[in-house]
């Protein structure tokens, strides 16, 4: 069973009686362990697609199964639990809590998990080590560089050992060199069997993935495997 399976998925926004189709007849599957980049120009619907994949938004037609379940099978609390336990999120603008240490930022998803508190620091330190931030645990976000901030976000996404990490333009706010390092980190994580789905509009970033889904005008234009 694929981890992610979309069948003729559609998303239409209705605002003031006007229908705006954003995604149209999108079908694809992602298996565990894949590293997929969803690429497309801005306005192509790739961000909406990622929101639907991350159970942050609902599709309007077709079917999306994550780990065998659709969003309609789940109660709001169960959806929150899936996001907490099975999904990790990395955002373009890092979204770290200000005035909160690196360690506490990484711990944030644990607050909403069933993991006992005494394990939190060990888990967070391990996640920080995995992204190469062991020396920054007590720093505040304001004291970190952009690349370091994104590493904190990635550690935070990793902490609950999710089935998949969704990254929305993770290098969008970073310079080329730092972007390269972050992508290298994603590659390393993928080699350690993490499933990664990331969105980008830059071919240089997408090429780090092992598979690229091209989205254009809300439709899947091309599904390319990179060997």
């Amino acid at each position: 069973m694929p981890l992610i399976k979309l069948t003729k998925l559609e998303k239409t926004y209705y605002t003031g009686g006007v229908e705006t189709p954003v995604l149209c007849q999108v079908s694809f599957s992602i298996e565990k362990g894949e590293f997929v980049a969803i690429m497309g120009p801005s306005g192509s619907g790739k961000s909406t697609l990622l929101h639907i994949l991350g159970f942050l938004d609902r599709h309007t037609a077709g079917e999306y199964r994550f780990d065998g379940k659709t969003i309609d099978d789940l109660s709001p609390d169960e959806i929150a639990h899936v996001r907490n336990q099975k999904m990790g999120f990395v955002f373009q603008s890092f979204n770290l809590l200000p005035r909160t240490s690196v360690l506490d930022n990484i711990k944030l998803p644990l607050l909403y998990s069933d993991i006992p508190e005494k394990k939190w620091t060990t888990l967070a330190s391990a996640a920080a080590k995995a992204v190469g931030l062991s020396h920054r645990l007590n720093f505040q976000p304001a004291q970190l560089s952009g690349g370091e901030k994104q590493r904190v976000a990635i550690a935070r996404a990793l902490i609950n050992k999710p089935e998949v990490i969704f990254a929305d333009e993770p290098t969008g706010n970073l310079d080329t060199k730092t972007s390269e390092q972050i992508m290298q980190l994603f590659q390393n994580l993928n080699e350690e069997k993490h499933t990664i789905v990331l969105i980008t509009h830059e071919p240089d970033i997408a090429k780090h993935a092992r598979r690229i889904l091209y989205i254009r005008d809300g439709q899947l234009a091309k599904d390319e495997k990179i060997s």
Partner: protein
Amino acid sequence: MTIKHTIKTSFNGLSVNKSRTLLTLLGIVIGITSIILVMSVGAGAQSAILGQFKGLGSRTISIEPGRMPEGPSDMAEIYTDSLKKRELVALQDKGNVPGLVNLTPLVMLPATLAYQNETYRANVIGGSPLIADILDIQPETGNFFTEDDVKLRSSVTIIGSKIKDELFGASDAIGQKIKIKGRTFRIIGVIAPKGQVMMLEVDKMALVPYTTAQQYLLGIDYFQDIMAQAESEEAAPAAVRDIEQTLRTLHNITDPKKDDFHIVTQAVVVERVGIITGILTVLLVSVAAVSLVVGGIGIMNIMLVSVTERTREIGLRKALGATDQDILSQFLTEAMMMTVLGGLLGIGFGAGFSLIAASILNKVTALAWPFTFPISAAMLGIGVATFIGLVFGLYPARLASQKSPIEALRYE
């Protein structure tokens, strides 16, 4: 999320804007402070007033002319002349009221006492020698006047220690002549310092035979009060009934509603004082409660601002697995932490101000005004503060919890 982490998260949320948090909870602080102050001062007033009557002793019975005053317009009834010599004699008859001792009529008037060039404004009390037993006072020097002085309408007086100090200083007052309302009285004694008993400032009063006061100072033939004591506390209710019976028979009264006298005992006073101070306290507390509503609206306002400011944080938390309930709890806890903190500060300030108020009242009034801090007031303060947080925090917290995560994450 565990309660511990909800509290920790809320605390962090509040400490980001320390001055804003403090200003916001000021409304609650002021509201709770006033409630505590009112309740504490109210309780102090109650025990100060009751303290006056405790001295009355549970045996003491006061028979006053006129109906029991029910309102200000009834106060004039006190000056009716339904208690005279005839009533006194009837009450002294053991056949009528067996359990009564120490009967003494009372007349009172404020008057200026003059000795040479010195004057002193005092209360002149006309009584019988038995008043010494009722008020539990003794002469410090000299003697009390006697039954003979009462019979002869002697112009003698025994004065309070304060009057003695003011008029005579260190020199001896016994045998000296002072003028009261133009009439010359001979001082036969000085009362040992006692302070206040039954609303009477013993140290600032001059005692004279009641007959003298009636005839020469007031020109009346009735009494303003007849005081007496039951033989024992247990005998008091029976004595009260006997007194009522005797006076009704004497005055041909069949309907108790038409009584031209009323009887005051400690039990009656305690009950009345309790009711009056209780009503006043409730009244003042309700006024103070209005300021709490204002404070609550301030909390709600700031919570709404905070929810908007932290829209992205809410979106992030939801994306990372926070349920609606988690977000609701976080913001509700923030509101309640503010109000409870405000409540605690209010209780502290309230207690402090009450203490200051009590010590000032102690100095400026002659009452023994105790500092009372009712635990019920503190509990009420905390309860009300929590409730305000709950009520005014709920709406902003619900708004926060219902935010859609993508909308929230997109918010700039």
